[in-house]
């Protein structure tokens, strides 16, 4: 879980306009904090698909699952578990 969280943080730092030194709460809204926008969200979905070989189904495209580091981490773990 910690590795996934770190990967997500690295992805957000690399793909978004985030300052590398910025710190934020794992439950903070990424859209409201301006860390991710609508294009960033699509990039995130592509990243999840390519890095973890899982597709996020329509009914999981919710703010709870995709708008915070904690939510994204939990979602990936859940999708990986379902796959295996």
């Amino acid at each position, binding site marked *: 879980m910690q590795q996934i969280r770190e990967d997500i943080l690295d992805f957000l730092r690399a793909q978004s306009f985030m300052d590398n030194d910025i710190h934020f709460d794992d439950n903070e809204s990424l*859209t*409201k904090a301006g860390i991710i926008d609508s294009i960033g969200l*699509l990039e995130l*979905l592509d990243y999840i698909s390519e890095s973890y070989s899982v597709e996020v189904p329509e009914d999981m495209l919710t703010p709870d699952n995709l*708008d915070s580091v904690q939510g994204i981490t939990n979602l990936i773990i859940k999708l990986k578990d379902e796959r295996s």
Partner: protein
Amino acid sequence: MQILDEFNKDIDRLSMDLRNFIKENVVDFRKKGVVLGVSGGVDSAVTLTLCVQELGEENVYGLLLPEKESASSSTPLGAEICESLGVKYEEVPISPILESLDIYNKKDQLIKRACPEYDPEVHKTSLALPDFLDGGSINVPYIKLAKDGEIVAQHRLKAKDYLELIGLQGVKQRSRMIVQYMYAEQMNYAVCGTTNKTEMVLGQFVKYGDGGVDIEPLADCYKTQVYALAKHLNVSEAIRKRPPSPDTWSHYTSDQDFYWRMPMHSIDQLLYAQEHELPMDVIQENTGLPEEKIIKALKNFDVVRKNTEYIRATAPVFTLNGNY
């Protein structure tokens, strides 16, 4: 307080003030009239009418700028309002410009990547976002395939395909801008824009496309106010009843489907409430929405406004400030 009443208030005075704005700016720019892209929609119909009332029909030139994917009703509705106001107009299809840049072919290939069953001979296409008030607050766009007017499939886009698609689609509005300036400079006219406040606030226009104009009379009027103006100015019912749309997809895609993600009256009332910092009970009473959805919508506006700052911005200039 009724927000919709505020939108309908003083429409006669608003109409006169907009006319004065048009005249003052055309004179200030030392231009002899205005060129306007007439789409068959309500914004251009209202703007055209105000320009004709203030400048006279002999100083206004209408351009109908359809392309292969425009709705079949757009050109006849545009021609009809130009004729009813006695405005000279011309139809300049922009499809050859788009074809010269291979836009349609590139768009077909891209849609095929996202939707393997796509057949350009069979399907019409549109781009849509999930309804905001219906629970879908995640902003994931879908390509929809329609057959005989019915949606038969929808697929999510990859980020790079979405970005390419936005670039391809923007060539439509930017081609129109090029044609409008070609005519405006030839006639020594100004280009008059038709963007309204709802679009301006949400960044719902193409930078240097429909946003590439000399004056924007309607840019501080919410879309609901534009409809009130349209009624006041006797714009035809056919234009007033047409769902507002950028008209850039072969399957007619309304502003509600892609930009607003909620009905026009809801979005305008919420934007107005945010602008005027109205208390929650007044917003609830006006919109009929629960507090939780109102808070989500207002926060979403903040995000959209921030994400679209670039579209509204003019190019920042580095000033020397006498230091060099």
